[in-house]
């Protein structure tokens, strides 16, 4: 039974692992930290998995556990968040769309997003994943109105960071 549970979990996570990578992408800046957070999220997902009922989508459930781990449970915030080693992550854009200015712009954008605080990053993450405000508010435990207001403020903040 346990073997089966383990097997199912590993298969599901292998399939959906990009969600975890994306959380790590926003909350860490270099590969070691990325891998470290990936591991912690995996452990938290596994610990919570026996209670996963399947009434929610596995991916939705992963958003919650992944963000909670990054925002609340994960300890090593200083070492990972305050150093900007963005270079280690190359921005690969498909060849046919390759555009130097766009790549530059993206780089600046990621840098700007990394300057946001943990909660703001969570909102940006869910926004980028095209979650609606209802789901954002349920994941973070704030009201829908506040999520919407905050999102607008974040957009403005990003504008200010990018065009000082």
């Amino acid at each position, binding site marked *: 039974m346990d073997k089966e549970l*383990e097997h199912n979990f*590993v*298969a599901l*996570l*292998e399939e959906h*692992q*990009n969600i975890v*990578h*994306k959380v790590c*992408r926003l909350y860490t800046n270099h590969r070691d930290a990325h891998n470290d957070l*990936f*591991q*912690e999220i*995996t*452990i*938290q997902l*596994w*610990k*919570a998995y026996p*209670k996963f009922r399947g009434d929610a989508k596995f991916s939705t*459930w992963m958003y919650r*556990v992944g*963000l*909670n*781990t990054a*925002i*609340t*449970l*994960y*300890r*090593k915030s200083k070492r990972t968040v305050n150093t900007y080693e963005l270079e280690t992550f*190359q921005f*690969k*854009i*498909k060849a046919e769309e390759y555009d130097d200015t*766009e790549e530059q712009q*993206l780089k600046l*954008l990621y840098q*700007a*997003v990394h300057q946001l*605080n*943990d*909660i*703001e990053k*969570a909102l940006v993450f869910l*926004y*980028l*994943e*095209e979650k609606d405000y209802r789901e954002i508010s349920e*994941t*973070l*435990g*704030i*009201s829908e109105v*506040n*999520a919407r207001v*905050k999102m607008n403020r974040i*957009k403005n903040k*990003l504008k200010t960071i*990018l065009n000082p």
Partner: protein
Amino acid sequence: MDELELLKKHWKQQDTEYPKVSADAIYKMILKRSSSIVKWIFIISLLEFALWACLSFFLKDTENAQHFDKMDSDYLIIPLTVLGYVVLAYFFFLFYKNYRKISVTDNAKVLMENILRTRKTVKNYVFFNLAFMAITFVAVLYIEFDQDKAFISKAQTAAANGEAFMFYAKTILIFAGIIAVFAAVLLFFYWLIYGLLLSKLNRNYKELKKLEL
């Protein structure tokens, strides 16, 4: 174009750029131990409970305590000891109950509140212990004043010299000083351990609360 829209476009395309973690690697990962703050808070809290339990246990065996046992103090000391253990059991139960409530699948705010609650339980327990220590000191002092022959004779000498007030004041101040130093050291460790451990959580919790204003 909205800055975030550009990011969103890239966000969806970047699926292929992440390193693919194999099933084997995932198997290995789930065998590893978590290093989450919840685990650390749990360990530190257990140590605190153990520390206070040991402290009262070891103090029982010291020379002073044995000297003290010869005096008629059971009517005060036994109820205090029983009270100490009952309260320890109560706080431990409360702590365990709160700890069980922590679930990574709750929303971020509830999760943070539940973690802070376990921490608060332990904090209350420590405050209780400090108060309890102060009360015990007062009780001990009272019995010393009342029954310790060496102490009474010293007090009488002091009184004969007209320094009774000074003598009592000095004794009480020394006791109060010991408690104050002990409390200060403890609070410093607290500030250090929990400050470091919970700084991120506190910051993010405040940020979430701020959204509700």
